[in-house]
């Protein structure tokens, strides 16, 4: 693990450290699941960040007002409380709305596993305690066969482990890893750079 200087300040939005995630998974096989599916734009008319889970995947979850789609993964009773989402390739593409990871963490998710995770969504997730785990497509497909296996994601080791002993490593930069392990965020780090910023402004950006 990397030690950062200056130290990071606690992020009240994350609150908890993310060291290890152990859970069965919810599977969404579709590829290119965009942020308009994760949370449709009409639910963005809010000035709050809490409570968005009830709008997550809204248009897939409900057949009509108050009538849930029983086929949809997040409506199936066996999936209640699961913290890991296994999703098709290119998850989180589309708009930069941070409401997407807010909605997913409010649903109780702690990690998204896919063979490709869109850039902005990935960055937004890491800032909100949702771990993006990118594995090879074949490995994601294998995991999708067995959603009832209790998977373990170890942030310090950058590993996803299965009960039958398979270990998949995933990329996670040291900085994001530190933020997750310590439950801290980037803003404190940036604030501590104020002298560097002031120097830059004096010469470049008056």
């Amino acid at each position, binding site marked *: 693990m990397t030690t950062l200087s200056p130290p990071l300040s606690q992020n009240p939005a994350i609150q908890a450290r993310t060291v290890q995630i152990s859970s069965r998974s919810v599977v969404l096989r579709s590829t290119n699941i965009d942020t308009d599916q994760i949370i449709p734009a*009409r639910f963005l008319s809010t000035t709050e960040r809490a409570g968005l889970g009830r709008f997550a995947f809204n248009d897939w979850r409900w057949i009509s007002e108050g009538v849930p789609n029983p086929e949809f993964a997040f409506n199936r009773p066996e999936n209640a409380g699961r913290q890991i989402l296994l999703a098709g390739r*290119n998850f989180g*593409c*589309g*708009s930069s709305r*941070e*409401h997407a990871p807010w909605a997913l963490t409010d649903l109780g998710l702690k990690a998204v596993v896919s063979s490709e995770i869109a850039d902005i969504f990935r960055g*937004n997730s890491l800032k909100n305690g949702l771990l993006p785990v990118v594995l090879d497509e074949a490995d994601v497909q294998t995991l999708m066969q067995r959603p009832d296996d209790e998977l373990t994601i170890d942030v310090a080791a950058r590993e996803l482990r299965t009960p039958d002993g398979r270990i998949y490593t995933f990329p996670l930069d040291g900085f994001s890893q530190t933020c997750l392990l310590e439950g801290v965020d980037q803003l404190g780090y940036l604030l501590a750079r104020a002298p560097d910023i002031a120097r830059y402004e004096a010469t470049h950006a008056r």
Partner: protein
Amino acid sequence: MSPAPAPRTLFDKLWDAHVVVPESDSAPAVLYIDLHLIHEVTSPQAFTELRARGIAPRRPDRTKATMDHSTPTLPRDADGRLPYSSAAAEKQVQTLEANCAQYGIELFDMGSDNRGIVHVIAPEQGFTQPGMTIVCGDSHTSTHGAFGALAFGIGTSEVGHVLATQCLLQRKPRTMSITVEGPLAPGVGAKDVALHIIGTIGVNGGTGHVLEFRGSTIEAMDMEQRMTLCNMSIEAGARAGMVAPDQVTFDYMAATPRGPKGADFDAAVAYWKTLRSDDGAHFDAQVAIDASDIRPTLTWGTHPGTAIAIDAPIPAAHDAAARKGLAYMGFDAGHPVAGARVDVVFVGSCTNGRLRDMRDVARVLAGRKVADGVRMLVVPGSEIVKRQAEAEGIDAIVRAAGAQWREPGCSMCIAMNGDLVAPGELAVSTSNRNFEGRQGPGSRTVLASPLSAAWSAVQGRVADVREFFAATPQKEVA
């Protein structure tokens, strides 16, 4: 004699000029942000967070605000009230007003003569300038890359970072050059080029990259076309898109009310002229496109990567996603999209809500009628676009054709303000996203250029605008 400096790309130059603290193994680079644009939807939570930590914005002078996503496009009622679609939408707008008032941030509010979609007004005013780093809590911030700026969308946490420190933590992205050579055929414009590129490299073909658009086709484009092109970069998954500034850019900047003036302008141009990729600069990926291959282009599916030429058959579905997209759209593989019956036509958005787009629409609609059963909205991207278009009589042409001429805003692009496509309806839209439900629950969207959209409105079906050009004397075709 010291060795010659290594050739750099335009992106490298912009990046290097804004590094406050270089990137290391343990932390991303601290990158300085010259211009921060905010709007009502992605900023309120950032201000809340700052307040909770007792932090005030560092550079309110480098922050500009407007309201566009949740705002009505219908005029004030008899009592002077704006017809907001919900109390929540109105509250977002009021929250932005309060935040800007508290911290002294310049706001283009509902009473401003210069309000509009954030990515339309910042260039218009001259806030957007070559060489800048520009961010906004909105993915289509890539639009500003048209000026040779490094411009990209950020999330709400990052909006807070920039407000608090005027900086962002960034890992250096990779670079991709996209070279387009040759003249464009009549009826083919920047939107078709953008869709063609996305159809070629794929909806995630640009992931992790900053695109630089180059070549004679791009050089021949005006600033509005370059903005349309850079706007769509994000739809190929790219972090940003850019075009090196040239005389076209400088002339545009000279005419802006808030850009540099006098000696400042001359000094700026001298610097801006250095902002191009050096000969031999290394790009991590390169794509070459022949402009003569580009026909009017539109989408058949539920993401922008499903772009095909208007007369090309929809490709056979090779995976579950394609089958789902086809089923959602109600289209059949093997047939072109052309001919499908159209319910709604939307012209507007930060992709195609500028004066040139309004002119394209007017050129097609002049002396014609929108087909029976088609509802058409034309929504200028800003108050300035609206005034200029009205001065040219475009509003009258639009209304005479039976289409609606609205107040500026994002409108049906994101359908947050009550402007909706009804479930099952097919819309031909000049916006940038055709995701399921993007224009309202159950809405079906075909992305297209303003020319294609207007011609489809007249025909009442998805139609090939080359028919219009074939039937129109060439002198009409600017």
